[in-house]
């Protein structure tokens, strides 16, 4: 519990404390109350970063969860050849570090010795560059989907395993087809697991940092210092030395994340009741 306090409670308290002050070269540290918060809420760079992860959340999370759901249902249907092989293989990318995943995809995206470059040479076409500023967010979305689709699939699959098979037998005797069984039995059984997966994905999207930070070496023009809120907080602290303002941005983002996760949880539970 002492470690817990040191790692969780103390940093939160400390960052709240920091966020209330301003350090200047002349005049030292002064108490400024809520000034930093006012600044953050009116900061176009912060909102641009926030908008980017919000867009990412709205597009990437549903695609990833839908794919995970399809694979989980396919494996659970018992109609696949080699189901356990599929299960473990789709899950494997989860064991790959985000750094390696981003490097690997980054190389593959690259035009020099990546697959895109190969395809361009081979077909004599020029495909759009996935590392350009227009497509970089979609490219990152692809990396994140690749990393976590298997993990989410496994959560959903585990939830499907506990459904009593006699329910399926009863449904079949009543003349229900496979799609009807999926709709009427399996999807309701998955509600809890889907909720958990959604909440984790929301939290993950809002903290997006590793992939953009690593791809920045390969695509320095497409990724700004305020690409995601976390990256912005990081840049403020470690490039700009604005520790007080950085702590404020981190707190604002943390609060927004918790509120959204909480709202999703409440809505999910009410539907379940």
């Amino acid at each position, binding site marked *: 519990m002492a470690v817990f306090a040191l790692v969780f409670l103390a*940093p*939160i308290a400390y960052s709240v404390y920091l966020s209330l002050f301003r350090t200047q070269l002349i005049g030292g540290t002064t108490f400024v109350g809520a000034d930093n918060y006012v600044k953050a809420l009116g900061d176009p760079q912060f909102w641009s970063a926030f908008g980017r992860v919000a867009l990412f959340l709205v597009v990437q999370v549903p695609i990833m969860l839908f794919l995970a759901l399809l694979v989980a249902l396919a*494996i659970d249907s018992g*109609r696949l050849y080699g189901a356990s092989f599929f299960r*473990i293989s789709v899950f494997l990318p989860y*064991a790959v570090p985000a750094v390696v995943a981003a490097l690997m995809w980054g190389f593959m995206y690259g035009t020099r010795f990546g697959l895109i470059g190969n395809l361009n040479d081979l077909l004599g076409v020029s495909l759009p560059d996935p590392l350009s500023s227009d497509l970089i967010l979609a490219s990152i979305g692809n990396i994140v989907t690749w990393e976590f689709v298997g993990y989410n699939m496994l959560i959903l699959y585990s939830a499907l395993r506990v459904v009593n098979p006699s329910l399926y037998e009863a449904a079949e005797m009543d003349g229900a087809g496979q799609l009807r069984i999926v709709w009427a039995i399996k999807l309701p059984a998955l509600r809890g697991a889907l909720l958990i997966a959604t909440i984790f994905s929301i939290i993950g999207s809002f903290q997006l940092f590793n992939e953009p930070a690593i791809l920045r070496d390969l695509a320095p023009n497409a990724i700004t210092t305020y690409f995601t809120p976390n990256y912005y907080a990081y840049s403020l*602290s470690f490039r700009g030395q604005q520790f007080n303002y950085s702590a404020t941005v981190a707190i604002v983002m943390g609060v927004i994340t918790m509120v959204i996760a909480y709202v999703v949880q409440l809505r999910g539970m009410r539907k379940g009741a």
Partner: protein
Amino acid sequence: MTATTSSATATAREPRAPRRGARGRAAAGPLVIRRRPRRNRRSVTLTVLTTVMLVYTLLPLAWLVINATKTQEGLFRSFGLWFDGDFALFDNIAGTFTYGGGIFTRWLLNTLLYVVVGAGGATLLATIAGYGLAKFDFPGKKAVFAVVIGAVAVPGTALAVPTFLMFSNMSLTNTPWAIIIPSLISPFGLYLMWTFASDAVPDEILESARVDGAREFQTFFRISLPLLAPGIVTVLLFTVVATWNNYFLPLIMLKDPDWYPLTLGLNSWNAQATTAGGEVIFNLVITGSLLTIVPLIAAFLLLQRYWQSGLAAGSVKG
């Protein structure tokens, strides 16, 4: 949760056997129930569709393996998904371990240190705390539950910057402690252990052990620990992955490359290509990446049986 150890599986299956027999006899009667008549029919279409997904997940890994066999020049001149004429895998592995005075070995050892102490410690704490929360009543238990659930929701990276500032005041940054201490806490592991312990260890067994005069520690080690094993393996695997793959925390905490873990080291090699005067060593970056993921993938494959049942228990409760 039963099907965990081989003996448990056997006992769990036994009660089902007579039912199957009963069904066989019933087949002779008027009410004919075929056992899962349609669910066992294999579908080629579905297999093909799922294979598309499989290609998506495995293709990048295949790319990594193939390109780890190429020299720096080979990377540029050959097709990405096929081998180059020169097979340089072993040269690349040797190069990875010797480049920069064998710094890769140092990073590997650092990673092992962070994983063993950090993830091991996190698992130990999560097991003890999760077991305690699941099996003992004490005042304020609901409050603790709320805090743990809240902690799962707090973005880890939002804490990292303040933690850095705090640690730098305590002059802990740039030491291994800066990585190990934050790794010790795993709210998700605690949550998983808690739900797992509530299910896996029946209260009745604990009661009877207490009646027989066993002390709490004895009960824990003799009775509860073996029952908790699949949960412990699951939490251990997930904390190991989290620590092994950690990038953000070491990035802000460590300045000295001698303390880098593999992830940070690999990225610094990659960044050499864009810094002026840096040597381009993409072949070593790729081989190093492959070497970084092999131990984890091996661990996941070998311990499949344990973590799949452990994860199932956690998600069912959630």
